[in-house]
Each structure stands twice: as structure tokens, then as C-alpha cells.
């Protein structure tokens, strides 16, 4: 599931952004390009952080952008973004963040498998470290595939 959602086009590595808002736009871009989402969804992901605070920073250094679908998500989708320089979310000890995902879901639970796979990846600290420092999207895909086949 995650392997279908992520591709070389939806993995952006070692990018530069000035703040978390720009990171949300950057992470949303490939999903907009492949028509998984409408542009309103990117604004909604940013608004969600305003509304609920930085709880999308799910673990130290890791953020998961998402918003209510509201008809702006065409299919379950995911992008992965790593940053050259980490950014602050105001998330306390969990700042700064340099590994980010943008998730698009179409309903309450059809992306359950995708989330389970994402959790499996994020709970492997060594793998997360290798993704953080990776420069080749193809290699990241291979690492993820290998992990999910374990």
C-alpha cells in the first residue's frame, strides 16, 4: 500500500524551506502534480496546524501533515520530504523537524493499512535515520520495500 502511494515522484530529499508552512506546500506539491489532491487540501493541511497546534509532529523530528478530506482528496496518497536544514513547529522537545510526510485520506479508515505500514517504518529508528540522510529516492523506496517485506 505505502509502496504504491510513494514513488520517486512523491519522495523529495534534502530540500530547503524557510518554515513549516513552506514545508507543507513543498510536501503537497507532488500530490497536486499527480492529481491526488486539489490545491485547497494544502491550505487545509496548514490550517489544521493552526487549529490544533503542532500535534502533527508525531515523534521527535517527524511530522505528518494531513487534513480533513472535504472532497479535496481524489485518492489515498502520501509524500515524503526530508530537509537539508530542520525547521521548528513550536513542538517543544520534538523540534526541530527534518522528516515530513503529507497524507491524503478519502475517509475515516480506508488508509488504515497505509498507516500501519508507515508506523512500522517509523518505529525502526535505524531505518528512519537512513531515510533522513538519503539522497536517492530510489534507494529510499528500496529500503521501505525491504522493511515491509520483513
Amino acid at each position, binding site marked *: 500500500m505505502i509502496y504504491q502511494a510513494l514513488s520517486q515522484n512523491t519522495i523529495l530529499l534534502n530540500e530547503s524551506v524557510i518554515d513549516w508552512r513552506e514545508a507543507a506546500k513543498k510536501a503537497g506539491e507532488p500530490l497536486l502534480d499527480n492529481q491526488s489532491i486539489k490545491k485547497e487540501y494544502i491550505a487545509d493541511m496548514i490550517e*489544521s496546524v493552526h*487549529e*490544533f*497546534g*503542532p*500535534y*502533527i*509532529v*508525531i*515523534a*521527535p523530528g*517527524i511530522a*505528518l501533515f*494531513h*487534513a*480533513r478530506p472535504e472532497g479535496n482528496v481524489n485518492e489515498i496518497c502520501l509524500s515524503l520530504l526530508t530537509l537539508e536544514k530542520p525547521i521548528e513547529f513550536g*513542538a517543544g*522537545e*520534538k523540534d526541530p523537524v527534518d522528516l515530513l510526510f503529507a*497524507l491524503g*485520506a478519502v*475517509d*475515516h*479508515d480506508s*488508509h*488504515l493499512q497505509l*498507516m*500501519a505500514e*508507515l*508506523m512500522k517504518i*517509523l*518505529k525502526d529508528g535505524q531505518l528512519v535515520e537512513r531515510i533522513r540522510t538519503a539522497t536517492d529516492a530510489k534507494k529510499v523506496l528500496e529500503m521501505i520495500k525491504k522493511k515491509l517485506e520483513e
Partner: protein
Amino acid sequence: MEIITVCGMGFGTSLMLKMTVDDILAKEGIKAEVSALDAGSAKGRTADLIMASADLESALEGVEIDKIYIHNLTDDDEIEKKLLGYLNQNG
């Protein structure tokens, strides 16, 4: 026993938390109903326990249900320790 895992929208981090909590309960042989909900819906619900990201503390203020706040949602040890600690005291 009924546990609700809560996040801002009800399908992101609450779902992650629900999966981890389900695993812990299964491992310990504890029977409980776990549902993932958004913060707004959680306010009108009854349950024995709420589990949520520590960042949602202010959003859940005033909800009269016991709460466990989790700092790192990918840290199984933190979640397990806090959940089992609660269940030992209140179970």
C-alpha cells in the same frame, strides 16, 4: 472497557495510536473497545479512557474522562508503560 484515541481530525494520529493500543491490549489479553475519534466528537462521548497526543491537552480541556497523554506516538514503550500503569491502578 472503552478507550477512545483522539486526534484533531480523527483519522491520522488517533488511528496510529489505536493500532498500537490494540496490539498492547491483545498482547496482554485485555478486552477493550478502542475507537479513533476527532477532538470535537470526543467531547460528546462517554468512555473509560482517552488517549491522545500531549499537544492536544488544551483541546481536550473540560472533558470529564480519564486521559493519558503520549509524547512520542511512535514509541511503543512509552504508550505501553502509560497504558498498563493506568490499567493497574484503575483496572
